[in-house]
């Protein structure tokens, strides 16, 4: 007879005790298990090319151009149609990518190691805001930037990380939550901490001063520099809670722009999916809802790990996303306690008297209370090639938690 409480305690305890250290970077094909020369990893649950969302298709074109496998979108499309390219979720390879989440074989990816349990997780380099691959843009300047990132930024950051001896992401995040970050949409503080930690080592390892200048400037100006390492860290934490027999804790929440999918610790590899929602968003000048793609990206791994939108009470500055007051940010966090199993041991919220962040979404609680996990996210244009058009708030579809609960009941005989 399984003991759900015991199983959940184990799963959440493992997630919290995971200690992610950012150790360096490497080429995806060299470091990510199961990576193949013709394989593209993407955000969210599995999806066929036919059902794939515009921005993800755009990112796939861009990735193939970047890889030199196609010279333009038309060639890329032909290659894909000819069945020459395989697609698999990042989550099937211990990786997590923001928005479209495309990782191609030659891309430099961050390597994060959970030193408590020994598992590793991966994520690419963050391109900053504006026209970027992860939002579905693939114009020549996007590809040029990717190439620079891969050839200059990546190797320099890798050398700097090795020089600094690795960066403790858990500690950095805990600090950033006290500095007004939520760890997902607002990472201003953490990105600064990251740049500050790396800068002296970049200066030491860079080929020349102008490279050091470019790298530090790029990292420092991008308030999302740390997003990808944070996502890899979150993946390494939640993966530590995977496959605990009898646990109802969610260990993956991810979207591919078409579907929102979750995985549950006690239900192994199964995905439970439903339509990705439209984001209630504020739009950049000239864009509106008509342009928006549904919810997309693996960045919800941060909420899965117990921060991000769940830690909004730490980041009152981001409430304008939801058109509310600072109190609404606090209320969002308080609501998330309703559906989580524990309060985080290491991530705390000053405003709530240093109460731990809500950690470990429990499908039982989600279904019983009808409260869905809160997701704050960027919005990509629905067509390939355009990029980001806004940012806002969305929730997963309710059915995926209900389906998971029914599957759990069937598997365990309830």
């Amino acid at each position, binding site marked *: 007879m399984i003991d759900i409480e015991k199983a959940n305690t184990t799963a959440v305890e493992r997630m919290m005790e995971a200690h992610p250290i950012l150790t360096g970077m490497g080429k995806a094909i060299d470091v990510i298990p199961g990576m193949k020369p013709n394989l593209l990893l993407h955000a969210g649950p599995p999806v066929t090319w036919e059902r794939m969302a515009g921005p993800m298709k755009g990112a796939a074109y861009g990735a193939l151009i970047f890889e030199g496998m196609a010279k333009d979108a038309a060639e890329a499309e032909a290659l894909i149609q000819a069945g020459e390219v395989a697609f698999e979720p990042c989550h099937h390879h211990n990786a997590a990518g923001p928005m479209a989440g495309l990782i191609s074989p030659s891309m430099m990816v961050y390597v994060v190691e959970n030193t408590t349990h020994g598992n590793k997780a991966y994520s690419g380099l963050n391109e900053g805001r504006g026209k970027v691959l992860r939002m579905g843009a693939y114009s020549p300047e996007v590809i040029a930037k990717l190439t620079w990132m891969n050839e200059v930024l990546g190797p320099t950051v890798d050398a700097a990380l090795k020089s600094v001896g690795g960066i403790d992401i858990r500690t950095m995040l805990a600090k950033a939550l006290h500095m007004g970050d939520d760890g997902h949409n607002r990472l201003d503080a953490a990105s600064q901490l990251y740049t500050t930690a790396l800068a002296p080592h970049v200066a030491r390892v860079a080929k020349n001063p102008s490279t050091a200048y470019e790298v530090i400037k790029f990292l420092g100006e991008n308030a999302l520099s740390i997003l990808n390492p944070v996502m890899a860290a979150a993946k390494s934490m939640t993966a530590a809670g995977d496959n605990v027999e009898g646990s109802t804790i969610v260990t993956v929440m991810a979207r591919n722009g078409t579907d929102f999918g979750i995985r549950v610790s006690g239900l192994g590899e199964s995905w439970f999916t439903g339509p990705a929602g439209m984001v209630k968003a*504020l739009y950049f000048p*000239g864009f509106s809802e008509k342009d928006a793609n549904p919810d997309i990206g693996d960045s919800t791994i941060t909420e899965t790990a117990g921060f991000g939108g769940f830690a909004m009470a730490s980041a009152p*500055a*981001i409430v304008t*996303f939801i058109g*509310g007051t600072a109190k609404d940010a606090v209320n969002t966090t*308080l609501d998330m306690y*309703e559906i989580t199993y524990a309060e985080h041991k290491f991530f705390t919220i000053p405003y709530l008297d240093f109460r731990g962040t809500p950690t470990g979404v429990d499908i039982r609680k989600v279904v019983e209370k009808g409260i869905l996990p809160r997701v704050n996210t960027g919005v990509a244009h629905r067509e390939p090639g355009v990029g980001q058009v806004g940012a806002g708030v969305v929730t997963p579809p309710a059915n995926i938690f*209900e389906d998971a*609960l029914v599957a759990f009941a069937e598997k365990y005989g309830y």
Partner: protein
Amino acid sequence: MPATKAEIRSGAYFDSAFLMQLQRNLAALPGVLDAGVVMGTEGNKELLAHIDLLSPEVEKAKPDDLVLVVRAESEAVAAGALGKVDELLTKRKSAVSEEHRPQSLETAVNDLPDAEWVLISVAGRYAAGVAREALRLGKHVFLFSDNVSVDDEISLKQISSSKGLLVMGPDCGTAIIHGVGLGFANKVRLGPIGVVAAAGTGLQQVTSRIHQMGGGVSYGIGTGGRDLSEKVGAITFKQGIDVLSRDPETAVIVLVSKPPAPRVADEVLQVARKAGKPVVVNFIARPLAARQIENLYFAGSLDEAAQMAVELVKNPPQAKAGSLPLERFAPGQRYFRGLFSGGTLAYEAQYILQGYLPRVWANAPLNKEYKLANSLISQEHTIVDLGEDEFTVGRLHPMMDNELRIRRLLEEGEDPSVAVIMLDVVIGFGSHPDPASELAPAVVKAKKAAEAGGRYLEVVAVVTGTGEDPQNLDHQIEQLKGAGVWVSTSNEEVVRYAGQILQGLNAQPTPDGAASTPVDLTGLQKPLAGINVGLESFSENLKVQNVPTVQVDWRPPAGGNDRLMSILERMKQR
């Protein structure tokens, strides 16, 4: 003629999300066609160019500059819109945004861990589920909701009594806990009278009358109208009596009920007898058996119940000395045998014993159902009138001839299930000249025989007569007492004494067979804090009484989906 106007503000930093909000507000102004509010970065200027909002002025903006551009129906409208920017920038959302409310009992308990009580007034279909959750969380339940099934009521009350918790209800309208009113309750002064009521307005009437008469109430424990039904078996009512009997601040207990099931009422009264405190009883429509039996005082109305309680607080009855010899009996000794010579005395004994024993068999029964099949053979509790015609055919009346009675006395004394034997000794003209001289040695013999069998036999007797009778009352009493007989000249007193012994010997520790845990008094005595699920007015009422309260923003579990609800419930039960 559409016009575009721009404004550049240096050194004014705003979060991009904040700017998007401002932009949306500007674009929403009447006559405004499009608006751009961004920091003057190259990327943003490109965006503005894309939607034709880039002017030479904007082109010069630096990344630290706030760029405001409006395209409107006319230049005047555009200028007017820009003029509104400061107002929009400083505009604040209402400072009084709603207080956060927990959306589940679980979270509410976390928010207010001191709460001992959960008030539930959600729709009946969901009420039992919420109550079950409250009990799981170790809380007492005030269950206002109606339309809760009897089966749910029974299961909730079995859980609660096994955990030492109270479930007041379902359909419990009112309660008073240590001076705090729950649900519909009156502002009643705190005092030494505790009330248990299976009648909402009955509780209000009694407690209000107590207050009006200058008295006060410690607890008003509501049980719900069905608690005294056969099925529910007064689980909460008995818990209530137990709480009040142990509560040091309660001096007098009042029991109020709408017409209860007779068997259950008897059980409740047996529990009340052991309360160790005066108990005033008003079971509406139940005929009064007596004004007072031991510590029980029977009131004919709600008002009288209140009066009697107030009076009993002022003038507490003197406790009687002397305890019952219960521990002397052997296991298995539990029956009464009354061997009477007087018909009326036998009838009265049957009548009084109704208050103590479920049934008494007799050859001349009050209730025909309990007629002995064979007058010569006793069964369970039995009263035999040996003066009946069947015994006097060809024989003297037992008031004159003791032979038959002595034989029956010795016979009954041999029965290992017999605990108490009662005799009546009626003297006076025409009676046996000295009955005690024959009865006393027989009693000694019977007691000795019982003792030899490892038992204790209690023999009690009423002696009717006067000191001027030829047999002399005192002389008769002395002889009987010398033989170890418990004697009184009042038939009632003897019967009640016997009744108490038998009640003690026949008491079942838990009539329902379910293990019950006493309610923890210290929890009840703490200052009350409550969690309210349902009618908001109940929360408001508590706040007015300065009771810390959390209102749960409750929604039906799993959106009311039965399949999911049952899965969740099964997961909780294991």
